[in-house]
């Protein structure tokens, strides 16, 4: 099978030794089994994330994302820019669409890009890895490499915000998207149907600046998973994963709860289902170990 080629935009959190390095590890086996070839964009830069607007004006933000788009156009022509991080995807897609819609913004952005000897023509499409999985590989394609069905695993599919809004996955609803549950079931696990906190905000970057308000959100997200008897939460988002996993111990300290709910990525589930080890799946990168998934990986 010929591999499908994509320009890969890992994003800051997916670098070695960064907060989502376990995600970065886990996409290796998954992409290999699915015939997805990710070609890293040479010298890519940060997208500005969802908090960059405070100091960075519109044009500086457009320029930094346009640099990644222009690098893709130059070095990986014809390939879609693909990111696993919703913030990276959102910033890049917003930039591509804004520049496409405004000749003057495009001209001004290209004036700034001259400083790095680049020019963006506007031919690159920015996509999320989940879009690649659903639209290019399909659910049947995702099921084909499964050699270890994740039977007996009960999972709360937590989609969060930015994978789902404002763009989302084509054909899905903003209020109750189904694709993550379908992905969970594709690898043989059970997706909890009535998980109320599926699209609740974890607080995003305000987990740093407004910890109490964000931790209230996180507590709801985790407790609802407990109420439904979930073994773990699964998410497509790097910031959701970090916030919902990392702050459980803080909530326990402050509020006397005993939260210890594992939070993993869909790619970690798929890696295990495709025969990868716990290490291949980056499961040694969890703060709250996903015991049941590690057991399955070890079988």
């Amino acid at each position, binding site marked *: 099978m010929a591999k499908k080629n994509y320009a890969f935009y890992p994003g*800051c959190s997916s670098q070695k030794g960064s907060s*989502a*390095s376990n995600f970065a590890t886990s996409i290796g086996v998954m992409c290999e089994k699915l015939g997805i070839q990710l070609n890293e964009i040479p010298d890519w*830069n940060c997208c500005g994330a969802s908090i*960059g607007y*405070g100091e960075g004006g519109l044009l500086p933000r457009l320029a*930094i994302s346009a640099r990644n788009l222009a690098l893709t156009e130059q070095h990986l022509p014809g390939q879609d820019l693909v990111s696993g991080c919703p913030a990276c995807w959102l910033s890049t897609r917003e930039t591509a669409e804004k520049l496409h819609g405004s000749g003057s913004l495009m001209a001004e952005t290209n004036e700034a890009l001259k400083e790095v000897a680049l020019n963006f023509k506007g031919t690159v499409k920015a996509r999320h890895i989940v879009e690649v999985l659903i639209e290019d590989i399909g659910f049947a394609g995702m099921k084909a490499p499964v050699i270890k069905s994740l039977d007996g695993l009960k999972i709360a599919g937590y989609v969060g*915000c930015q994978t789902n*809004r404002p763009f989302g996955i084509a054909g899905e609803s903003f209020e109750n998207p189904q694709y993550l549950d379908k992905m969970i079931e594709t690898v043989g696990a059970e997706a909890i149907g009535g998980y109320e906190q599926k699209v609740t905000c974890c607080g995003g970057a305000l987990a740093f600046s407004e910890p109490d308000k964000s931790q209230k959100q996180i507590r709801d997200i985790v407790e609802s998973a407990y109420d439904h008897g979930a073994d773990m939460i699964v998410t497509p988002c790097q910031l959701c994963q970090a916030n919902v996993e990392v702050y459980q*111990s803080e909530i326990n300290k402050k509020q006397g709860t005993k939260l210890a709910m594992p939070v993993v990525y869909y790619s970690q589930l798929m890696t295990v289902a495709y025969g990868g080890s716990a290490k291949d799946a980056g499961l040694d990168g969890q703060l709250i170990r996903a015991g049941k998934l590690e057991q399955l990986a070890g079988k």
Partner: protein
Amino acid sequence: MNDFNKQAVAPYHNNFLREVEERVEDGEWVKMCMQCGVCAGSCPLGNAWQHTPQKLFMMIRAGKREEVLSSDSMWMCTSCYNCIVRCPRKLPITHIMHGLAHYAHRQGMAPKGQPTREIARLFWNNLAKTGRVNELKFSLAMYFKDGFVQGIKNSLAMQGVGIGLIKAKRLNPMEILGGHKCKDKAGFRKMIAKAREIEERKLGNAS
């Protein structure tokens, strides 16, 4: 506001709606709000906003420049995009809130020490230096933003989380020595400076 900024907004003759329409990102949408309040009810931090987006829109139309730009409210946006997808008039509310926050910050009218304003500034300065975010330096900068003593307190309080992340190889203490960066960080900085220069020129602000 410095004199140059005062000059730049003078032509609006206290017509704050017009100023927002012309100078704030996506500000031209403000007049489309029909005051239904769905944004206010959809916001995860809605009860923490002194003025919900719906109120801010009406205050802009009422010319309440000082109250809007010095408001703490826009800084409560978590960028969850609930308001955008639910707005019956399709206003890009999240973007307007970001635009208002940024405009207030740039005009020097945003509340001093507002925590989200502070981390936004630290985050941008962090990425602008090398082209990529250094998570270790960003975290330390956040803990120490209110001074050295508070910084030590914050670091100690979050010590367990930090050690957990280091053990899981999701935080690298060696990043303090430099860490990940763009090869062309010099070009990256020049590009941002250029973009800022073009924007200032367009807005008629002092750079």
